[in-house]
């Protein structure tokens, strides 16, 4: 089922996309990789960055194997560099 979710961006992805947030229609249920591929298709110039990113929901990374459903929004955690 196609559902519209809010997608939040940070750091290098936010800067590259020139937005901190957007609404995107995605097919659910979906795995982490499906969501990243969907966003990469929308923003093909940032494909490498999306595919090196992780998806977070409710302040935690999703399990790469899990089927995600009933989402209202996700955070896209582009490659991190804390410490």
């Amino acid at each position, binding site marked *: 089922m196609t559902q519209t979710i809010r997608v939040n961006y940070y750091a290098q992805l936010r800067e590259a996309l020139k937005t901190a947030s957007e609404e995107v229609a995605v097919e659910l249920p979906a795995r982490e990789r499906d969501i990243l591929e969907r966003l990469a298709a929308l923003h093909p110039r940032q494909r490498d960055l999306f595919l090196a990113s992780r998806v977070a929901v409710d302040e935690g990374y999703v399990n790469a194997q899990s089927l995600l459903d009933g989402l209202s929004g996700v955070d896209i*955690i*582009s*490659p*991190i560099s*804390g410490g």
Partner: protein
Amino acid sequence: MAPIADILSAAALDREALRAEVSDPAAGAVLLFEGTVRDHSEGLTGVVALEYEAHVSMAVRIIAGILEEVRGEIPVRKIAVRHRLGRVELGEPTILIAVSAAHRDEAYRASRAVIDRIKHEAPIWKREILRDGSGTWSKGCTAHRATEEEVKSQSAKGKVQI
């Protein structure tokens, strides 16, 4: 112990204050790890500052979880962590990790585990600022669980997918 919301700090980090948080009469070893702004990184020289941003609520939650896990795995007395946000000048601390333990082996292992896991898991980003004011996001690595293997190899770098 300070509230976990204090883990991320917009103000300069205070080594002695964090050291005091892990004081414990049963501790025979205290290790203070300090990440500092250095003048270069891979392929980049003339760095004068770093600028940090974070997914704050998630980073606090993830770091607090890492501390809980490490406390469960290694018999330490106390652990305290502070990570900077915003602009940090050359030579200044970007992160402090204080660990106290009865014996030094536990202090070293816990300290190393905490910094490795924060670097691999916490949603924090830095930009390297050059003399001319221009900034470049650090290449970074895909967030993932730091494995024992990586911690042991002590040279975990680059991308690893879980």
